[in-house]
Every structure is written in structure tokens, then in C-alpha cells.
């Protein structure tokens, strides 16, 4: 059974209207015979059939408007008995396929579908101009060169008076300002962590970092209603397991307690999505993965919290390697941008020189921060008796817009429970 479809009748034609059938079911037709008249945008046109055969059914009615490729009639190829399905027929007629029924004008036939739009070759380096940075409320005239120089030299362009046309700030204004050491430009927190000043910028770099931390912390305190909860967690079993584990490992493979604590936080977070994500303009978005921002103090001063990505799914050995590498790169100033901006929660003060407890300030736009104090031998009441056990005080600072103290407390209890089964923490997360 051959399908007779409305052919494409000219380069600019999408559809046609059947004016007249020249045949009726059962008529024998020869190749090239006109079997219908179709009205196109230009005029009425005779439509030929391309196969010998006999007309089966006339599907399109007179006056029917249809897109190119619509099946108008069926045809039994020469020698094909009525009722047989297309294909089995002895006839070798090639079933006319125009796209998948789509109008021919809309797309070329199946063989002719235009190739996927691949990258066009560039003849000249076309660098689309980056969008100008967010303009302040009332747009000041600032030349692109002035903006560029200010950005490169940390000059606060808003504090300058322009000497260019119409009071525009021009390059010379920025150059003189930079020379006189004008105040460093305030930067939104994300920007500061994204752009770690490289070593050779020295003093201005430290100043710039201090400025950035100040801005971030001020914003955090201004916008985020913190609540705090804390829990003392016995680590006897954890440290014993760690010591046993390290005794079988080469020095280079040795695990630090910090890794255990980090993994516990990541695993515990799975049950508390409201602590793991970001809050922009009051709208909270939970993150699928837990990227732990690890607060690392830089030797020459300053603090940075690059993220251990997807910490919840990694075995301790991997986490240890990643942590070591992260600290090294943080101090060398060669962090990846994703590590700087993708943290979903921050964990701080894992150092053994810190205080017994630390209550941190949340790092916007995150919504929680876990603090671990120094691991200390403390008296611990158990089964009516007193023992001396290594204990760590874990604290949680969280954004009350997004979660409540009750949930924060449950999270810390979960954390404590997980640390009682260190061997469980070493497996790959299922």
C-alpha cells in the first residue's frame, strides 16, 4: 500500500487546498498521470502520481487545506492485492517520506535535515563586549577605560569626581586616584573569594582581603538572623579507630581527625536539607550535593573557605587527599573558581590550637556554619561513673529564616551519633 502525499509544489509553499480529484478508488493510474488538482498560493496546479498502480482510498476531501506531506490517498502498487499492508506488496515503490509529516517548507526531508548548528568558524577574534557592571542607581558617566583601570587597581570609582566631558570619570582620574592610594573598592563577598589576590600584590592584597571579609561579615550580621546550638561529642571510639587505621597506613596516607568530622557533617546534612544551600533575597534554594566550605587561615593573615566538593560521597582517604591539596592551593593562591563559589555550608576552626568551642558567623549566601572546638580530654559521666574521654564541642550557627533551633539540635545529635561509628563513615556513600 503506497501513501500518496501532497508534494512540495514550489520553493515557497507550505500548504495546499484540494480542488478536485481526477481519479476514484479502484482506478488504474500510470506513472506521471495527473490524479488531483491542488490550489497553491500562486494558482491551481495539476499534481502527478509517481507510481503505476490502482487507487485505494481517497483520504483528502475536496476543499480540505493541508500542509505539504499530508497523506491524500492510498495506492496499491501494480500486482498488489487489496488489503495487503505496505511493504509486503510485491511493488518496489519507495514509500514517499516527507519529514515526519512536518511541512516540507518547515524542514528539509529526513535525508535533508540541516546538520545541527555546529560552531561557526570565526574569521576574526570577535570578543563580545562584557556587559558593563551593574550600574549604580543614577548612571554616572564612566569611560570603559576608566572602569577597567579602576577594577584592575582596586580603586573605588564611585568616590572619584570626573574631569571628563559632562563630568564623566575618565582614565586620567583613575590613574591619579590609584597613584594617591584611594580607598580600596568594596566588593561583594562572592567576588572576593573568587578573586584571590596573587602574592606579588602584597600589602594592597591583604588590605583588600580584610575589606572583603569585613563586608561579608557585616552583611551576614545585617541580613541573617543567627541562632546557635552546640553539643559535646565523645570521640574515644572515633580516635581509637583512627589510630588503628593510621598504624596500618604509610605516613603519607595518614588520616587527620578533621577528615572524620568533615565526613560526619556531610553525611548528617543529608537529613537536613534546610542547612545545606543558599539564600538569595530571602529565597532559599537547597543544594543537591554537600560542598563543605573549609575555613583555612592563611599564614600571612586573612581567611578563605574553599569548598570540598560533594564531600558526602567520598571515602576518608580521598577526602584527606583533597583536604591536603585544598589547603596547599589555598595558601598558594591557586584555587578554582568553583571551589570558591560553590560552598553549600562552612565548617570552621578545626585547628587543635583553637578554643574548646567556636560559634561562627555564617558566610552569605549560605545558611549554616558548623564549628568544632579543640579536641580535649574531659570528664564524661557514663553508666553512673566518671571517665576521662577525648571530647569535642560541636556548634551550629544557622539562619532562622530558613531553619529552627529544634532542627539544628537534631542535626547535631545526628552528627554525634555518626561519630560513634567511625568505620561506617569510611564507606563510599551508598
Amino acid at each position: 500500500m503506497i501513501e500518496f502525499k501532497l508534494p512540495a509544489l514550489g520553493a515557497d509553499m507550505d500548504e495546499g487546498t484540494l480542488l478536485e480529484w481526477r481519479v476514484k478508488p479502484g482506478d488504474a493510474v500510470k506513472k506521471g498521470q495527473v490524479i488531483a488538482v491542488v490550489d497553491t498560493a500562486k494558482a491551481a496546479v495539476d499534481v502527478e502520481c509517481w507510481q503505476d498502480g490502482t487507487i485505494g482510498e481517497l483520504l483528502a476531501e475536496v476543499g480540505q487545506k493541508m500542509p505539504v506531506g499530508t497523506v491524500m490517498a492510498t495506492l496499491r502498487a501494480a500486482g498488489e492485492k487489496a488489503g495487503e499492508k505496505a511493504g509486503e506488496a510485491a511493488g518496489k515503490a519507495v514509500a514517499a517520506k516527507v519529514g515526519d509529516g512536518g511541512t516540507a517548507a518547515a524542514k528539509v526531508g529526513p535525508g535533508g535535515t540541516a546538520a545541527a548548528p555546529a560552531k561557526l568558524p570565526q574569521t576574526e577574534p570577535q570578543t563580545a563586549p562584557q556587559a558593563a557592571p551593574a550600574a549604580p542607581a543614577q548612571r554616572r558617566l564612566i569611560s570603559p577605560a576608566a572602569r577597567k583601570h579602576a577594577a584592575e587597581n582596586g580603586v573605588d570609582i564611585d568616590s572619584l569626581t570626573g574631569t571628563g566631558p559632562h563630568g564623566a570619570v575618565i582614565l586620567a582620574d583613575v590613574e591619579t586616584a590609584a597613584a594617591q592610594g584611594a580607598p580600596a573598592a568594596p566588593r561583594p563577598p562572592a567576588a572576593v573569594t573568587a578573586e584571590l589576590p596573587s602574592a606579588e600584590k602584597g600589602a594592597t592584597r591583604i588590605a583588600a582581603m580584610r575589606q572583603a571579609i569585613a563586608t561579608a561579615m557585616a552583611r551576614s550580621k545585617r541580613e541573617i538572623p543567627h541562632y546557635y546550638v552546640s553539643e559535646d561529642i565523645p570521640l574515644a571510639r572515633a580516635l581509637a579507630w583512627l589510630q588503628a587505621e593510621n598504624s596500618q597506613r604509610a605516613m603519607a596516607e595518614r588520616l587527620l581527625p578533621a577528615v572524620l568530622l568533615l565526613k560526619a557533617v556531610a553525611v548528617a546534612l543529608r537529613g537536613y536539607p534546610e542547612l545545606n544551600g543558599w539564600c538569595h533575597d530571602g529565597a532559599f534554594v537547597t543544594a543537591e550535593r554537600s560542598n563543605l566550605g573549609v575555613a583555612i587561615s592563611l599564614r600571612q593573615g586573612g581567611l578563605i573557605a574553599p569548598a570540598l566538593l560533594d564531600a558526602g560521597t567520598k571515602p576518608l582517604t580521598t577526602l584527606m587527599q583533597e583536604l591536603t591539596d585544598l589547603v596547599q592551593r589555598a595558601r598558594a593562591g591557586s584555587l578554582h573558581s568553583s571551589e570558591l563559589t560553590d560552598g553549600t555550608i562552612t565548617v570552621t576552626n578545626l585547628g587543635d590550637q583553637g578554643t574548646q568551642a567556636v560559634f561562627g558567623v555564617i558566610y552569605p549566601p549560605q545558611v549554616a556554619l558548623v564549628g568544632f572546638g579543640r579536641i580535649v580530654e574531659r570528664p564524661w559521666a557514663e553508666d553512673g561513673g566518671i571517665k576521662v574521654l577525648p571530647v569535642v564541642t560541636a556548634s551550629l550557627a544557622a539562619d532562622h529564616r530558613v531553619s529552627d533551633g529544634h532542627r539544628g539540635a537534631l542535626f547535631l545529635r545526628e552528627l554525634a551519633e555518626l561519630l560513634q561509628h567511625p568505620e561506617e563513615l569510611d564507606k563510599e556513600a551508598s
Partner: protein
Amino acid sequence: MTQTDIRAVVLATLKSIAPEVEVDALSGDRPLRNQVDLDSMDWLNFLLGLNKRLKVEIPEADYRKLVTLDDVVAYLQAKVD
């Protein structure tokens, strides 16, 4: 290796971890980690540095013996000979 050689290696390793520290000015008999801010990561890297340079194994259990600079040098001298 003489004691002064080992001491030199120890100070060089410490310098690599904490470049801003004046290692020559450190006193040998006061707790090293009170004079130099070394968190657990720095401490582990310091010991790994010694392990690499002197091919000496330092199990966690021995950490307690390594409080002052002199302790470290003596401990290593014993291990190296």
C-alpha cells in the same frame, strides 16, 4: 649525620611549612608549637617532610615525644643512626 646536620634539615623543613617564621631565632627547649602556629595539617606536613628527607618513620604514638625542637632533633638522631 651529625646533630647540626639533622637540626639544619629540621629547620629547613619547618621553613617550607611556615615561610614567614625566623627559624634560626627559635629556642630549642620551649614547646615548638607554642612558638610557631602549626595546626594539625601543618604538623602532619612537617613530619611528612622529615620522613621524606630523612627516610624516618614517625608513628602517631611518638607525637607525645616531640614537644620541643631539641626533642625532635634527638628523636631523629636516634632513628637515623
